[in-house]
């Protein structure tokens, strides 16, 4: 694995260099909300904004995605959207990198989802280390860390006024080559050492101590537990936790018909918190009450994803903890599960 160093004042030059060749998607701040968007210039990028409010899964798995347009005016015609261009996704934090890893087997496992795979394959993911640990962060519990580059093609770690750039894949190497002028190999060794120090330092800053030990075994037997009912009492049934979760991936397929035999089929994010989430055409709903829906969410995070893919369904980004209007806190849930008889 090769590495480079880039000085902080050259970052925007590097981003503009990318922009000359590829579309660039990066964190942008608007009215205090950080989300990933396509940018037109490096100055739009919120480099130091910390963890985004909306996770970068929006790039691979947009909230609304047109699958195809149809027209049945003279025989059925289907027009699929053009494939994704080669794109650079910049500034992905370690927890969100893990999030992509959790989504990959869903969309690229037994069922290959061309829409997701196409973008995933054509995107170079540039990771960016965290410089601080939020009170809601707990990626450590999942074996990650604020500087962990797993899953990135290129990993940037901020060390004061410069960044250590680790080239982790051929895609990452190509991006470095494309903009080689901005990087130097001088000081890579010291930078790598500094990163280790930083990792240890940041590791000590976690407020939330989350111990996942024996949780999976416990929840395996908790389907009928009255605990879920109690937890669900205060749940409002909104979609904040699922929409902001880097690993949630439920979607719904909708046909929008214009009424003139043309229209399009799209998929939109769905949320297991919504009342109509598993509503059958018959009117029957196997998850009729909040209790079943809340249970489904936590079992998905703590059990089903592990059962299916051997990967945790939670990456410890803490967004749901921070944004839940009624303070349903997965770290508290994990702790409470252990206490349940």
């Amino acid at each position, binding site marked *: 694995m090769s590495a480079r160093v880039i000085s902080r004042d050259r970052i925007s030059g590097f981003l503009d260099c990318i922009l000359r060749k590829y579309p660039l998607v990066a964190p942008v701040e*608007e*009215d*205090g*909300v950080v*989300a990933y968007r396509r940018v037109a210039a490096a100055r739009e990028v919120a480099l130091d904004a910390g963890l985004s*409010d*909306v996770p970068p899964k929006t790039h691979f798995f947009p*909230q*609304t995605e047109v699958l195809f347009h149809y027209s049945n005016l003279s025989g059925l015609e289907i027009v699929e959207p053009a494939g994704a261009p080669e794109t650079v996704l910049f500034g992905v934090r370690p927890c969100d990198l893990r999030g992509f890893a959790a989504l990959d087997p869903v969309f690229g496992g037994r069922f290959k989802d061309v829409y997701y795979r196409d973008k995933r394959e054509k995107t170079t993911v540039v990771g960016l280390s965290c410089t601080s640990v939020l*009170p809601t962060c707990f990626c450590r519990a999942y074996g990650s860390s604020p500087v962990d580059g797993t899953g990135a093609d290129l990993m940037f770690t901020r060390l004061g006024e410069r960044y250590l750039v680790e080239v982790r894949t051929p895609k990452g190497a190509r991006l470095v080559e494309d903009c080689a002028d901005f990087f130097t190999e001088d000081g890579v060794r010291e930078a790598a050492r500094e990163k280790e120090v930083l990792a240890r330092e940041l590791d000590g800053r976690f*407020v939330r101590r989350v111990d996942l030990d024996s949780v999976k075994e416990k929840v395996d037997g908790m389907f009928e537990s009255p605990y879920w009912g*109690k937890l669900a*009492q*205060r749940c*409002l*049934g*909104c*979609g*904040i936790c699922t*929409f*902001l979760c880097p690993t949630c991936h439920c979607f*719904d397929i*909708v046909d*929008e*018909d*214009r*009424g003139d035999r043309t229209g399009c089929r*799209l998929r*939109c*994010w769905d*949320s297991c918190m*919504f*009342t*109509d989430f598993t*509503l059958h*055409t018959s009117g029957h709903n196997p998850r009729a009450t909040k209790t079943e829906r809340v249970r489904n969410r936590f079992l998905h995070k703590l059990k089903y994803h592990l059962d299916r893919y051997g990967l945790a369904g939670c990456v410890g980004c803490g967004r749901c*903890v921070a*944004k839940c*209007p*009624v*303070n349903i*806190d997965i*770290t*508290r849930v994990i702790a409470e599960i252990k206490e349940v008889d």
Partner: protein
Amino acid sequence: MKQAVEELRRQAAGLLKEERVKCVIGWTQGTDVARAVPFFATSVRQAARLTWTPFCVNNLSKYLLNHRYDNTPLAVVVKGCDSRGINRLVQDRQFVRERVVVLGLPCGGMLDREKVLRVVDPGAALQEVEDRGSEYMLRTDKGEYGFEKREALLSKCLECEHNIPVVSDLMIGPQVPSPAGSGIDRFAGVRELETRDPAVRSTFWDRHFARCLRCYACRNVCPACNCKECSFEQAVPGWQQGACWLSKRNHPGQNYLFHLIRMFHVAGRCIDCGECARVCPVNIPLRELYRKVMKDAEELFAMKTPGTDPEEVPLLSTYRTDDPEEFS
């Protein structure tokens, strides 16, 4: 606030012990120092976990809807602004007033969590809060912190209209002065936007609505949103969606429509508890949207903030012959 907390716990325990209610809906300490969480006390033991701090922002009146069709006798703890939600539900006939014991708390204002966390370690344990009128004193295991109300309260509290609940069966704790700043224009935010250039206003809302995730937290937290099924959740063709009214698609135009439809739905019924704006994960200033109607309705039809009076009829469901009108 210590006195109020103790009284709250005692009263709640009493109600549960005498089996006058099955459940007391209140708050308990949340998962960090600056957070309270809705709590459903069903036993005397649990009543001791109830709390009252300047972080009890949640409007609990919404939770009455969990029990709207059963006969469980309930108690609910409300602040002044939340208490309007009780009237909302009673007027909308979603809850029979007699079935709920309303425990009212005179409120000195809610602290802005973000501002507090800038100073206080989130992991600290909150031990006691003292309301000193113009400031709050937080005592934690990691030290004491004072917060000037004028600086650290939520903006809605500085515009507070009823710091004493407008409806309650039992008032708990001592009366406290209103946190409202003197001479504050409740609708300053709306007025400010009104004076801006139409194009500026247009892009202002475009930008905010484009960001909307359609997570529906604003709707789900709102006591005025009490339909059995929401028109935005109709996957079945045959309802509005069957006629392509509002799509599930997340798209600026559709989001715009969503917010305007919801806005009209709660027009004249919104109780201005500010919960929608608080819960919005992408900071859409929803309160400034709903308060526009409130302001106009106050000016044009002398409407009080909905929920103030248990006997009122929602503005859009009534008329007076001397109502002003513009159309010819």
